[in-house]
């Protein structure tokens, strides 16, 4: 079993908080797509693994034309064993979506969309420097439903300084009323060296308030659970049966291929990143070389990653799986670290699963760090 991630490094407008790799000049789109096709051919490794998930991320994959997307998907089908039932997700921004395009996407086999809604309020969207407005957001949901997409996700950001609690509550209830099958929701994070980071340092924008973010997150958890959503990962909520299979594979350590500038991949041993520069990527691919750096994920790193990612999921750390993967000795050591979180009411150990309580979810990082094994 394996997945495929394709990075489409183009955006119409740069959101201030964003630290993904993308370019707002779209000229190299064709060249990048061609290079991605080439990279898929150049890639060796276990291409016979059945591919269960494909994910077009970015950047903004909805900026690709139908032809471009078809070429890539076509190439993947030629080079890989894409399973019949594969989940094929495309990230799309509301300002790109129209009925024809959505129709094309569905026809070419894309069966899941992830829409960058972020908020149903214009003041939020402006503050974030998003390319779309609130009504485009609402409209896009209608359009994709019209094209027959029932499996889709929207992103919602909370905790920006302009997002009042009331506004946030309203955003959440809109999502619930719209019966959105999957919601990825996360606190606005000021990543180092982003435009937002600079603006805050220059006092042009207010900083986020971690206490307010905590309150909004707590509200989110309560409201979503009350509305029948499963809170299956720290930032992910879904109606029954609508989990993101692709993201879940990341958290389970399933290997995946990655194509495109800035794309990452994991083969079970190495995590790799392609170079984050469109011209350099194109040039190198045209010379027949995949330009990537890699990190060897040692058993200890793998263990720590498993702790970190699984703690974020609802079932938490699976002790049986842990023992099978990392051995009895490590399990013993791991268990010695459980006590504090349990006494604090932040975690529960039940049926060989160690998982976070609602309160614990607010402290997932600290709890994971405490359980880490030293290199």
């Amino acid at each position, binding site marked *: 079993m394996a997945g495929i991630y394709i990075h489409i490094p183009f955006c119409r407008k740069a959101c201030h908080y964003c630290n993904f790799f993308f370019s707002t000049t779209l000229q190299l789109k064709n060249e990048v797509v061609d290079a991605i096709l080439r990279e898929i051919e150049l890639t060796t490794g276990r291409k016979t693994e059945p591919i269960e998930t494909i994910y077009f991320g970015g950047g903004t994959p909805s900026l690709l034309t139908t032809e471009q997307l078809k070429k890539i998907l076509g190439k993947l089908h030629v080079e890989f064993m894409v399973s019949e039932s594969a989940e094929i997700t495309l990230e799309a921004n509301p300002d790109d979506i129209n009925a024809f395009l959505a129709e094309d996407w569905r026809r070419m086999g894309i069966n899941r969309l992830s829409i960058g809604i972020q908020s149903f309020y214009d003041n939020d969207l402006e503050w974030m420097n998003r390319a779309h407005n609130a009504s485009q957001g609402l409209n896009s949901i209608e359009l994709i439903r019209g094209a027959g997409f029932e499996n889709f996700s929207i992103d919602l950001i909370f905790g920006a300084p302009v997002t009042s609690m009331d506004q946030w509550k309203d955003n959440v209830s809109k999502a619930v009323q719209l019966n959105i099958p999957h919601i990825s929701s996360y*606190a606005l994070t000021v990543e180092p060296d982003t435009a937002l980071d600079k603006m805050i340092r220059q006092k042009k924008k207010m900083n986020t308030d971690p206490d307010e973010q905590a309150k909004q997150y707590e509200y989110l958890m309560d409201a979503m659970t009350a509305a029948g959503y499963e809170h299956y990962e*720290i*930032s992910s909520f879904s109606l029954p049966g609508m989990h993101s299979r692709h993201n879940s594979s990341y958290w389970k350590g399933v290997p995946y291929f990655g194509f495109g500038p800035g794309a990452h991949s994991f083969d079970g041993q190495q995590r790799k990143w392609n170079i984050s520069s469109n011209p350099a990527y194109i040039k190198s691919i045209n010379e027949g070389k995949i330009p990537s750096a890699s990190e060897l994920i040692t058993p200890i790193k793998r263990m720590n*990653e498993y702790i970190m*990612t699984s703690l974020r999921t609802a079932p938490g750390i699976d002790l049986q799986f842990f023992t099978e993967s990392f051995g009895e000795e490590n399990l013993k050591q791991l268990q010695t670290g459980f006590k504090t979180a349990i006494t604090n009411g932040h975690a529960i150990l039940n049926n060989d699963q160690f998982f976070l309580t609602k309160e614990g979810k*607010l402290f997932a*990082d600290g709890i994971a760090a405490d359980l880490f094994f030293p290199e």
Partner: protein
Amino acid sequence: MKNIRNFCIIAHIDHGKSTLADRLLQATNTISERDMMDQVLDDMDLEREKGITIKSHAIQINYKYKNGEDYTLNLIDTPGHVDFSYEVSRALAACEGALLLVDATQGIQAQTISNLYLAIENDLEIIPVINKIDMDGAMIEEVTDQIIELIGCKKEDILLASGRAGIGITEILEGIVERIPSPKGNPEAPLQALIFDCVFNPFRGIIVYYRIVNGSIRKNEKIKFVSTDQEYDADEVGILKLKMQQTQIVDCGNVGYLITGIKNAKEVKVGDTIISAANPAEAIQGFEEVKPMVFAGIFPVVTDDFEELRDCMEKLQLNDASLTFELETSQALGFGFRCGFLGLLHMEIIQERLEREFDQTVITTVPNVSFVAYTTRGEKINVNNPTEMPDPTQMDRIEEPFIKAQIITKPEYIGNIMTLCLGKRGILINQSYLTQTRVELIFEMPLTEIVFDFYDKLKSQTRGYASFDYHPLEYRESDIVKMDILLNSEKVDALSALIHRSRAQEFGRKLCEKLKELLPRQQFQIAIQAAIGAKIVARENISAMRKDVTAKCYGGDISRKRKLLEKQKEGKKRMRQIGNVEVPQEAFLAVLKLDD
């Protein structure tokens, strides 16, 4: 021996000693053009970064005097900052003469005077040099008068120079040969060499620097140190050029080095005498013991590293004879050392050197001066550490050290200086005009008031136009109290401070505020309290952290996020647990970061 001259360069800080040394080395081709750089003798990274000399540095010069005779000149460049005055006093013991530099734009300053007195006490021949005469603001006439006044020399005895522009270098070299006496000593007598410095070298063991007073030292000869009476082979001897230079013999009157392969720091002591094993002589007089001015605790960041830290402290002490330390235990920090320093800069340098040269990250605690307490039972207790302070109910009285402060400044700053010193519990003793534009103020002040931020304040209050020196006076009775810091009601011994009652309240308030900034939020509220005895004088709260989780965690984020958490864990390991509160390393020095 008649062609050897041993001399050092002494002056107030920044008057240009190391720069002048550069020119002397260049003029005599001691250092090749390729190896030359500004202040070449300041070879420690810290010296270069801070632009000041920290260690004395000896180097040998071969000089052809104008009559064609060859001379060996042993030069020692010394530091100017007060905190390193012990370096100066030991260098003086290896010399017969001193160049006393005075910056032509600054005139005589406080440490010019104190270093001059040190040199006179050691019977050195003084060659006064007015330096930096290339500068626009040079006041040659005025400074000449000041020097004549101070040392009672003749006008012709004063040399004019510029280390930067290379003026007066020949005159200085000739002056050294003509005016400084050659070393006395008997080359035929049994060996006696005074150790004035050492350094630990991980490959070669301990390298000893000495001045031969009598006899000579030969490669492979058997030698002993008087204080330990242990015998060693002189595996290597030589003289000090920019690097060490091996020789077969180091003669009477000369300065040299010795390597015996000793690795144990305890076996060598600065101030000890090297003698011949076959023909042992007496010890010669060593150095006065250093008298530390401030004390602070140094603890390993990770408790298990205590033994390693001890080893490193011993090795560092070889190269810094002014560092003293003894074992200390703290409830909060475990095993560590109570160290004595000559000042806060010295303390900072020690911490930095431990980190850079020995890879030891340490926690340094609140510094304090040494008090003397008398109990109701008539006992006298030296209080170098707040924990040694007797309980108030058992205390008869407590005394604190006073100093005599000498400040030289311009008349327009008298007002500011008065405000500053009186605010620091100073008593004005004397005010006198040295010249029309220079005034000397003498205060008696508690030492504790000057070790912290006094020097910085003085500089900012006078735009740098004040120099300052001090000398210990007696202990005087005083109202000193112990201020404790409590974190969630748990007393943190390592944060206690000894302070005058009149200052305690404000100090407590600021310290609590600073700690509030420095302590990371935790999952519960933290109460920070300052208390004198049972009385709480200040309080701050750190509200509970409500969230410690980052938003997304997709494929590409996993490595980055794992690294962040690894760092978070590493950071936690470096914190100390006090009750349920985690305290980072820098919080223990919060007291030095208080703003006004």
